[in-house]
């Protein structure tokens, strides 16, 4: 028996969130005795990169190298994962929550008759039955969920486990996926993706700006600070609504949910809908000129002051220290 992990890659690299899913599966296998961890990668990607998934805790990587799978066609990926599930004789599939992962997992759940639990935050409790803790109400609460099916899919929230880095190389095996025309009934005609930048949903540090920054021309200092920290940039909803920043940077209830180690909020009031997207952050720093801004109640550290004065100084202080 083994646990199957569906992994994603972009720009030739396995995503960090997928490596976390592998580490989660590794810890789960140790707990339940489900044997080895087998990862499944789809589309064109280097063999060495795949072998390195072993460090995170996989002993084998199945590679469905069909180039038509490089773009994330939802139906085709769901079919491929179902075939791999069958082949390795798994009972559990683990994957990282993501735009593609969510869409694939839902279809897979029906294909393999598995319960799907999303936003999983820790290893299941298997002492009596099978109970999984997941984050609900956009991070405002947790639910213990009782799973009653034999097959299970766990979609892991970021930071649910520590990333394992001390495993060996995984063996990489080619996996022939049999795909039909129906799997490719939809076509991805083009993709626009920010390249070379730290991606917001996966970032370890996020620097976010709100309406307090007055206009898009003032984002230079946010980007400078992000650069110093190796951070991704985010924003509040009104900022992306007015078009100061691209939509995919909008953080909150109706935007991206982030879970970085450090979230720095600059000129953001801290409305409950914004907090819903950041409440899983390990440490929150708030810079706001209004000492009554609600964000301070959700923060670990704060500076009451004018962003235009504080941010450049903070950037210099960080540069001196890092």
């Amino acid at each position, binding site marked *: 028996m083994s646990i199957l992990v569906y992994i994603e890659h972009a720009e030739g690299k396995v995503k960090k969130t997928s490596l976390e899913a592998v580490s989660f599966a590794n810890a789960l296998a140790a707990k339940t005795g489900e044997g080895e961890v087998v990862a499944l990668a789809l589309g064109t990607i280097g063999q060495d990169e795949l072998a390195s998934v072993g460090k995170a805790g996989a002993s084998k990587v199945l590679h469905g190298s069909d180039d038509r799978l490089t773009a994330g066609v939802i139906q085709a990926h769901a079919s491929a994962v179902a075939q791999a599930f069958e082949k390795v004789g798994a009972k559990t599939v683990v994957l990282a929550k993501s735009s593609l992962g969510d869409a694939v997992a839902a279809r897979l*759940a029906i294909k393999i008759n598995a319960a799907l639990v999303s936003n999983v935050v820790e290893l299941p409790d298997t002492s009596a039955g099978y109970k999984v803790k997941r984050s609900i109400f956009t991070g405002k609460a947790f639910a213990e969920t009782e799973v009653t099916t034999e097959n299970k899919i766990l979609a892991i929230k970021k930071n649910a486990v520590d990333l394992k880095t001390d495993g060996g190389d995984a063996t990489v095996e080619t996996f022939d996926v049999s795909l039909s025309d129906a799997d490719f009934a939809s076509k991805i005609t083009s993709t626009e993706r920010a390249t070379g930048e730290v991606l917001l949903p996966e970032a370890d540090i996020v620097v976010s700006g709100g309406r307090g920054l007055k206009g898009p021309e003032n984002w230079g200092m946010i980007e400078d600070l992000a650069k110093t920290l190796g951070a991704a940039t985010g924003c509040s909803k009104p900022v992306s609504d007015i078009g100061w920043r691209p939509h995919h940077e909008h953080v909150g209830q109706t935007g991206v949910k982030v879970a970085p180690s450090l979230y720095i909020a600059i000129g953001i009031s801290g409305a409950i809908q914004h907090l819903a997207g950041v409440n899983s952050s390990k440490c929150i720093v708030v810079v706001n000129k209004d000492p009554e801004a609600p964000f301070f109640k959700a923060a670990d550290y704060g500076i009451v002051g004018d962003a235009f004065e504080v941010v450049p100084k903070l950037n210099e202080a960080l540069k001196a220290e890092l």
Partner: protein
Amino acid sequence: MNILVCITHVPDTTSKIQFTDNNTKFDSAGVQFIIGPYDDYALARAVELRDQTGGKLTVLNVGLAESDPTLRKALAIGADEAIRVNSEPKDSFFVAKQIAHYAKEGGYDLILMGRESIDFNGGMVHGMVGELLGMPSFSPVMKLDVEGTTVKMAREIEGGKEMLEASLPLIAGCQEPIAEWKIPNMRGIMSARTKPLNVVEPVTDETQAVATQYQLPPAKGAVKLVDKDHVEELVKLLKNEAKVL
């Protein structure tokens, strides 16, 4: 074009989340319920598409009678009729089974949902229904145009978006900026009173993953303030105390 929009009946986004009965039930005391914000985007786009192409727009909720005002609001916004599957939405699989059954009966060309519900945040009901009906499903969709039977969409991916083309019928889980939320006007509210709201019974009671116990996150300690003229203090705290640098 016949369109189905599936909507959730969820606590307003500003609600304080609390539980009762030994943390086994959501505490709805003092909570205002709304159409899920993402479902509201789906509904807004569906109204535009129905107005553009003609046909009928149906809204569906799996829920108890307390959902009726939410369904009436959807009718006021512009849906032509409503279906309520009369049951507590026990888990995503249960909900997907009900939707798939009634969606098949209705023979819809397009099924729009929200990218996720804001209570359980699964982001999975659309995909499950898609697989159950053998229809393609896409989420999170931020743009959707119909030209004949061709549907052109933009789907959000990490750090960007991808453009897609597919054919009707299909399912999409929607998010902004697919359309602007619509606020019901007086005429809409008046006409909603006489539009049909059909209550039907669940077709199966199968479940797979039911929440049994709830928990709130630990309370946050007080914020530590650093003087704006000594920002280097903050850097030290982040490095040595919080250990996040």
